[in-house]
C-alpha cells in the first residue's frame, strides 16, 4: 500500500456524523465512491464540475503498453435506459499516460487506481512494470474484458484459466493492491472471481459492460461501426446487482460494485448486496457532477436511516 488517503469524515454539508470511509485491499478510502474506468478519463475534464478530492478514488481509463487507436465511429448508440459503446480502449499508451495524466493527477488529492488493458498476458505485465516506476499509483485495476489475441480473441475474463493467468502475471510484478475487473458475459461469474482470488487478486470489481448490439432499421445497419459494443447504464443495474451479490458470497476479498449507478440510493443497494465500494460510470455523462451527488446521496441515506458508518451497510441485505 503506497498511498493512503486520510480516512475522512465526509465533507458534505451537515453530514458531520456519517463516517463514509471504507477499506479496500489495505487502501483506506474517504468514501466508497470511485469513478468507473473509461467514463472519467483521468479526471481533468471533470475538474470544473467535481472537486476531485471528494472522491473515494479515481479510476483512470484503460492504459495499454503501446498506444491503441480504438474503433471506428460511430462508437456509441443509445438504448432504453442505457448506452452501447465500442470505444475500443483508445489510449495513448502507458508512456504518454505517465507523462500527461499521472503527472497531472499527482497534484490532485485523490487516490489513483490505474486501469490496465492488454491483448496478451505480457502486455498487462508490461504496463504494470512501467507504472511501478511511478509514484502516485494507489492500486491497479486489471480489465480482463480485453480480447485475448493469443487465444483467438475471446476475452481473458470469460474463462478461469486466462483470468487467473493475467492476475498472476500482474501479481508477480507489483506489491500494490491488484483489483481484477470482471466481465459479466459469463455463465458463472462467481467461479471466475474465485479463480482470480486464488491467483492473488486483492479485490474484484464488477461489472464491466454487457455485450450488446443495436440496429438502425431504416439504414439496416448496425448502429456501431464495430457492430457489437458494451451495454452500460441503468438498464444493466439488475444484472450488476445480482452478480455483485453472487460474487460477494463466493469470495473473501472485497468486491467493488458497478453498473448503472446514478444515485446514492443505487450505491446503497450495491453496498447492501455486498460491495465494499462502488464505481460510477455512465452517470458521469448524464450529470458531470454525478460522483459527488452519489456521495451526498449515501450520506443522506445514512442520516435518514440513522446509520453512522457506511461500513454498516456492506452486505447488510436482509434476505
Amino acid at each position: 500500500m503506497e498511498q493512503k488517503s486520510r480516512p475522512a469524515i465526509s465533507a458534505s454539508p451537515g453530514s458531520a456524523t456519517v463516517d463514509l470511509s471504507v477499506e479496500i485491499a489495505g487502501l483506506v478510502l474517504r468514501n466508497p465512491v470511485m469513478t468507473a474506468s473509461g467514463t472519467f478519463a483521468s479526471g481533468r475534464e471533470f475538474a470544473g464540475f467535481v472537486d476531485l478530492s471528494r472522491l473515494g478514488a479515481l479510476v483512470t481509463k484503460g492504459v495499454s503498453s503501446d498506444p491503441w487507436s480504438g474503433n471506428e465511429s460511430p462508437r456509441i448508440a443509445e438504448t432504453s435506459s442505457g448506452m452501447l459503446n465500442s470505444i475500443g480502449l483508445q489510449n495513448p499508451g502507458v508512456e504518454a499516460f505517465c507523462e500527461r495524466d499521472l503527472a497531472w493527477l499527482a497534484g490532485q488529492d485523490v487516490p489513483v487506481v490505474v486501469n490496465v488493458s492488454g491483448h496478451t498476458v505480457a502486455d498487462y505485465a508490461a504496463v504494470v512494470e512501467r507504472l511501478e516506476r511511478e509514484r502516485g499509483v494507489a492500486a491497479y485495476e486489471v480489465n480482463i474484458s480485453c480480447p485475448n489475441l493469443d487465444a483467438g480473441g475471446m476475452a481473458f475474463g470469460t474463462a478461469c484459466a486466462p483470468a487467473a493467468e493475467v492476475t498472476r502475471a500482474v501479481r508477480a510484478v507489483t506489491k500494490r493492491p491488484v483489483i481484477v475487473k470482471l466481465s459479466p458475459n459469463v455463465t458463472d461469474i462467481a467461479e471466475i472471481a474465485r479463480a482470480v482470488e486464488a491467483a492473488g487478486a486483492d479485490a474484484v470489481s464488477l461489472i464491466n459492460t454487457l455485450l450488446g448490439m443495436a440496429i438502425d432499421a431504416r439504414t439496416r445497419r448496425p448502429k456501431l461501426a464495430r457492430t457489437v459494443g458494451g451495454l452500460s447504464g441503468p438498464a444493466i443495474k439488475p444484472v450488476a446487482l445480482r452478480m455483485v451479490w453472487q460474487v460477494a458470497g463466493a469470495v473473501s476479498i472485497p468486491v467493488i460494485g458497478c453498473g448503472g449507478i446514478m444515485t446514492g440510493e443505487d450505491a446503497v443497494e450495491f453496498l447492501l448486496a455486498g460491495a465494499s465500494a462502488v464505481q460510477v460510470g455512465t452517470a458521469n455523462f448524464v450529470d458531470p457532477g454525478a460522483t459527488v451527488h452519489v456521495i451526498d446521496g449515501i450520506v443522506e441515506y445514512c442520516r435518514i436511516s440513522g446509520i453512522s458508518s457506511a461500513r454498516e451497510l456492506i452486505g447488510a441485505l436482509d434476505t
Partner: protein
Amino acid sequence: MTCTAAGHDTHPLLERVEVVRNDRVAEGVGLLVLRAPRIAATVQPGQFVHVRIAADADFILRRPFSVHRASAGAVEILYQVLGRGTRELSMRAAGDVMDAIGPLGSGWRVPEGTVHALLVAGGLGAAPLGMLAEVLAARGVAVSVAQGAPTAERLVARDLFESVARRVEVATDDGSAGERGFVTVVSERLLAADRPDMVFVCGPEAMARAVAAQAAAAGVACQVSLERLMACGIGACLSCVVTTTSGRKRACVDGPVFDAGEVCWDGTEVPPRH
C-alpha cells in the same frame, strides 16, 4: 493566425436554463430561446451546449446543439426534430427548466485581417453559422452566404443571413427557392466570384467534404463544423472522434470546428438525417 473566437479559454459549466420561447419555424424545425446568462456571457460562434432534455425518460444521454445566436442572458438553438430527444424538446414550453453544459467545443476561428468570408450552410448546418455571420459583419468582414435546403420553407435563419450578409444565394432540392439542386453549385460560384479569405462550412458531411474540396482547389482556407454522436461532450469518453492528419481528435473539445485540411474524410459521420 490569431484565434479570435476560440473556446479554449472559457470553462464549460452546468447551468439551469429556462425556456423563454419555443417556436416552430419550419416543418419539423424549432427555435428555442433559453435564458442562460452564464453560458450566453462567454459563448463564441461555433460552440455548442449539451442539454439534458428529460430526467425520467427512457433515454439517458444529453443532446448537443450549436448555439445559433446569443444575446444578453439568452442563447438560441435551432433544432430539427429527429428522434426522442428532439421530440421531447419540441414539447418544452416557456418556463420549463432543463440543464445545459456549455459553452462547449472550439468554435470558428477568424484570422485577423479577414476581409471576405463565405459561409456555406446545408439544412440545419445554418445553426452554428448564425452567430458567426453576425460577429463577422459587426467586425466589418464582408459576408457571403451559400445556403441549401430540401425546400424553400427549410431555409432556416434566412432573415438573419439576409440582414447581415452582402449576399445570400440559395439552392433547394425541389427548386422552390433559388437554384434547383445542391448548395455546392452555389458555393462553387461564390468561391469564384467573391474570392473569400476563408470558407466556413456546416452541413451533411458529404456536402462539407465537397465544399472543402472546392475551397482547396481554389486555394482558400476552409473550416468545417462536424457532428459526431456525443456522450459526455467534455472530452472524456472518446465517443466523438474525428480522424485527422494528426490522429484521432475529439469533436467535442478539439472541434466541432476543424480546419478542412486536417480532416481525413473517412465516412464515419452520424447517419444522414431523414
